[in-house]
């Protein structure tokens, strides 16, 4: 079946994300737009994924949970999991590799952890979530892949925080697909499927760059979580050990 997917979205946890874009708004807008599979990928944190999971369930939306990690070279990489607990565990791993740069909400914006009904549970203040981790591009991709994540370098062709701009090229590493803003030669994507992502930071940006993917029967498990191996096959990637 053909499914409209959007694997790159922020919420009010990302300091650059609008406070209006709660996990609830993300799920509701995505469902209203006819999207079938949506990921929440805040900067270096998965703390809003539980709220997103509940709202995705309510909206009848298949979901992926993860983060947009910032490598030491300041390249952004989407790391996606089928289950919330996996994403939260990966988020704790990222926190261990985060620098102690304090957060200044006035300069960067609030980092709000919310529940499914948009109540603020916590304002993350001990660190600026976007700051570069002490993991380089290859190391971050390998760490995410070894935890079972679907790994996608984000906006590789963007002037800020894309692999081409930060590194000069896209190095070979453990990733499954490549997200780009514009058309990309297969050669520059190192043979990976090139996908688009909305990178929504505001409610009206949800779904702006969704892409269609042909998924086989049974791409969701009985508990409603997404089978990442089915997703990999649909993206043209082989299974573990790729």
């Amino acid at each position: 079946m053909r499914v409209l997917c959007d694997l790159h979205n922020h919420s009010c946890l990302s300091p650059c994300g609008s406070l209006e874009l709660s996990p609830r708004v993300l799920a509701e807008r995505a469902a209203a737009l006819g999207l079938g599979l949506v990921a929440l990928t805040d900067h270096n944190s998965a703390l809003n994924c539980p709220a997103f999971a509940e709202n995705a369930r309510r909206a009848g939306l298949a979901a992926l949970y993860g983060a947009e990690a910032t490598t030491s070279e300041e390249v952004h990489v989407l790391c996606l999991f089928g289950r919330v607990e996996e994403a939260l565990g990966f988020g704790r791993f990222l926190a261990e590799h985060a620098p102690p740069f304090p957060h200044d909400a006035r300069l960067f914006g609030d980092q709000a952890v919310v529940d499914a009904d948009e109540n603020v549970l916590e304002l993350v203040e001990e660190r600026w979530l976007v700051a570069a981790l002490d993991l380089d591009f290859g190391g971050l991709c390998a760490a995410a892949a070894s935890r079972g994540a679907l790994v996608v370098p984000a906006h590789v062709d963007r002037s800020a925080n894309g692999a081409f701009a930060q590194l000069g090229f896209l190095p070979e590493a453990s990733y499954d697909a490549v997200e780009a803003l514009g058309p990309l030669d297969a050669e520059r994507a190192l043979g990976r499927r090139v996908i688009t992502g909305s990178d929504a930071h505001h409610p009206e940006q949800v779904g702006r760059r969704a892409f269609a993917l042909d998924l086989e029967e049974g791409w969701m498990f009985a508990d409603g979580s997404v089978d990442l191996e089915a997703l990999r096959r649909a993206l043209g990637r082989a299974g573990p050990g790729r």
Partner: protein
Amino acid sequence: MNIGDIPSVLPCALAQGSYEDRPLSGGFAGDLLSDVMGKAKADAVLVTVQAHRNTIAVASLAGLAAVVVCHGRPVPEEMLDAARDEGVAVFVTDLDPFEASGRLWAALNGRA
């Protein structure tokens, strides 16, 4: 050397001129914001190719006086808005970071 002397040291355009003129303590060249945040000194001028809003947020955190954007990169409006709010001067030069840094270093160290 003051912030306002930068245009006499290297060919550049003033992109954001709402700032309080004061002496520069030195300079810092870097495109990794984490580097800038951790290592740049207050009242220095930042030479970079990173032209976006977070450049200004990091400059403010580090107490930087000015930002010189190299390669004539377009500066987005939201970066200029942030710079205006924070009183950080923004200049745009067609020079590369090596050339721009060299000229600023020479002027700051009396070798111009």
